[in-house]
C-alpha cells in the first residue's frame, strides 16, 4: 500500500521556488530518510504535507486520501527551535499534548491518559524525568520527550524534522531503536536527516532532494556517489544561485 503519494508538487516559500515538480511514492512500513543540502526544501516538504504551506501546483495524498481526512493518522514532530524552553511545564504535561489531535483540548485529562503518557515516556527511557521542568533536560533528553509526545498521538505515519539535531550518539541510538520498533508495528516514518555518514545504517529508503527530486528508493540504489554529486556537488551550486536570484527579483531588491 502506498502511504505517501506526491504528484508534481511545486512549492514557493517567501516568493522563492523551493520545490520544483517533486514526484514520488512511499510504500508502507519503512523508515525513510529525507536528505539534501541546506535549503533543499526538506522541511518545506514536510510542512506542505501537513498543510502548513500551500503548493503552487501539484498535490499529495496519504493513505490514498487528502491530509485533512486522515489528519489523526499523521504525527508531525517539528524542529525544536520554536519551543519556549522557559515555559513552566513538566515533562509529563508535554507528552500529554499528544492527545490533543485525537480528542481535542477541551476534554479533561483522566487517569488512563496519564498512564498512557507514562508508558510512552517509559518506551523512550524518560519515565524517571516525568515531573521535571522541561528546561532541566539535556538536548537528547528533550528530543526523546518530543518523540514520546508523537507516540501518544498513535499515528500510522510519523513525519520528523531533524530529530537527531544536537543529539548525542547514545540518544541517537536509543531513538533509532524506538523507530525500528515502530516500523515493526507497521508504521511508516519519514525523517529529515543531515548526517550523511549514518544514512545507510538508519534508513531503508532514501529521498534525495535538492529542490528537485534527485532520486527516491531503497538506500543501496539511491545513495550512490553519482546521486550525491548531483545533490551536493558543484552542479548543485547553480540551484542555490538561481534561487537567490529569483528571491531578489521577485521582492524587488
Amino acid at each position, binding site marked *: 500500500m502506498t502511504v505517501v503519494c506526491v504528484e508534481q508538487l511545486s512549492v514557493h516559500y517567501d516568493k522563492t521556488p523551493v520545490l520544483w515538480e517533486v514526484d514520488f511514492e512511499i510504500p508502507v512500513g519503512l523508515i525513510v530518510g529525507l536528505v539534501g543540502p541546506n535549503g533543499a526544501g526538506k522541511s518545506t516538504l514536510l510542512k506542505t504535507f501537513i498543510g502548513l504551506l500551500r503548493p503552487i501546483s501539484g498535490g499529495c495524498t496519504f493513505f490514498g486520501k487528502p491530509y485533512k481526512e486522515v489528519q489523526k493518522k499523521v504525527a508531525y514532530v517539528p524542529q525544536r527551535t520554536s519551543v519556549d524552553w522557559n*515555559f*513552566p511545564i*513538566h515533562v509529563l*504535561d*508535554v507528552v500529554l*499534548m499528544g492527545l490533543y489531535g485525537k480528542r481535542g*483540548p477541551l476534554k479533561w485529562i483522566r487517569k488512563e491518559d496519564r498512564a498512557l503518557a507514562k508508558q510512552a515516556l517509559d518506551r523512550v527511557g524518560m519515565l524517571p524525568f516525568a515531573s521535571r521542568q522541561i528546561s532541566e533536560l539535556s538536548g537528547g533528553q528533550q528530543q526523546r520527550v518530543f518523540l514520546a509526545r508523537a507516540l501518544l498521538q498513535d499515528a500510522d505515519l510519523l513525519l520528523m524534522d531533524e530529530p537527531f539535531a544536537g543529539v548525542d550518539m547514545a540518544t541517537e541510538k536509543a531513538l533509532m531503536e524506538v523507530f525500528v520498533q515502530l516500523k515493526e508495528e507497521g508504521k511508516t516514518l519519514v525523517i529529515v536527516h543531515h548526517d550523511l555518514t549514518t544514512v545507510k545504517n538508519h534508513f531503508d529508503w532514501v529521498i534525495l532532494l535538492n529542490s528537485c527530486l534527485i532520486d527516491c528508493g531503497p538506500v543501496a540504489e539511491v545513495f550512490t556517489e553519482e546521486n550525491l554529486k548531483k545533490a551536493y556537488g558543484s552542479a548543485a551550486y547553480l540551484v542555490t544561485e538561481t534561487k537567490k536570484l529569483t528571491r531578489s527579483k521577485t521582492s524587488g531588491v
Partner: protein
Amino acid sequence: MLEFFVDPILRAPTIGSMLMGLASGLIGCLAFLQKRSLVGEALSHAAYPGVVLGLVIAAAFFPGGISAAILVGAFLSGLLGLFVIHQMEKRLKIASDAALCFVLSVFFGVGVCIASGLQISHALWLQKIQVFLLGEAATMMDGHIFLYGGLTLACVLSVISLFRFLEILHFDPEYAKAVNLPSKAVHTILYILLMVAIVVGMRSVGVVLMSSMLIAPPSAARQWTTKFSSFLILSGALGLLSGFLGNALSVWSLAPLPTGPMIALVATAICLFSLFFAPERGFLPKLIRVTHFQLRCKQENILKALYKKRTINPNPYLLWRMRTKGWIKGEKLTPEGYSQAEKLVRLHRLWEVYLVHMGQESDRVHHSAEEMEHILTPEIEIQLQALLDNPTQDPHQQPIPGVSR
C-alpha cells in the same frame, strides 16, 4: 479584617480591587509568557481616548449610561490600538517595541488633547475622566461589584476552558500549527480578555498604573512554580492579594493614601520579594549557593595542600569550618579529611588523564582539572574510571590514589 467585606464604605473598593487583581494577574500571565508584557501598557494607554470619547458621547446623548459608555469606549479604543499594532508589525514590518510605543504615545496623546479641550468647555466631564487616569477605588459602589464581578468571571472561565489550548500555543507554536489548533482564534480571544482585564482594572488602579498589575503578579508567580496550572493560579492569587492589601493599607495608614497607587506598590513589593527570595530562582538563595560553593572550593584546596604537605596560610574562618566538618583537628588532617583530600586528588588526576585522552597537551590540562575536581560527581568518576580503564598514573607520572585495579 471582616469589615472590609461587610462595611458599606469598604466592601465595594475592596472587592472591586480584588477582582481587578485576579483578572489582571490571570491574563497578565499569558502576555508574560509570550514575552509581550508591554502590550498591556500600550493597550491601557490606548484605552484612554475611548474613555474620553465614551464620556463625551454619553454625556451629550444619554447621560444615564455614562459608566457603561466609558467602559465600552475604553474597550473599543483598546481593540483599535491592538489592530494598529498588528498592522504595523505585519504590514509595515515595524519592530514590535516601536509599534507598541507608537500606539501608546499617539493614542494617549489624542486622549489628552481631547480631555484638555474639555477643560475649557465642560470641566465637570474632565473630572469624571480623571478618575480613570489614576483610578479611584474609594468611590466604587456596590453596583460596580456586580459589573466587574461578571467580567472577571468571564475571564476566569475563559482561561479555564482554554487551558490546554493556551498551554500548547505558548509552549510550542509550531506543534500547535501542526495539530491545527485554531491559533488565530485563540490569540484573538486572549487579546479580548486582555482588554476586559484592563477595563476592569481602570477604575481601581487607573490607565497609567494598569500595566503594573499585568506584569508584577506573573513575574512574582514565575519565581515560585514550574507548572503552568500552578503558575496561573498563583499569579491570580497574588493579584487578588495585592488588591486586598493595597486597599487595606490605604485605609489603615496614618495619612489617607490613595488606593490605586497602593495596590501597584503592594504588587511590586511582592514581585521584588519573589525576585530576591524565591528558593530556587531568587537572587539571594542563588548568591548563597554560589558563596557556599566558593567556600567549599577554598576549603578543599586547603585540604589538598595539607595532603600534599605544603605550607598554607589559611583563613581562620575556613579552618574553623573544616574543623566543624571533621576534616581537620588543630591543623592536621583527620582520617575523614585525608580520604576527602585523596578523593580530590584522584578526581583531579583522572580528569587530566581524560583530557589527554581527548587530545589535549599534558602541560595544559592542570588548570581545567583544578576547576573540575570540585565539580565531578561520583557517577562521573565511575564513568571516567571505566572509560580510561582504571589508570594509576596521571600525565605527569604522579600516582592516582585510591584507584583499584
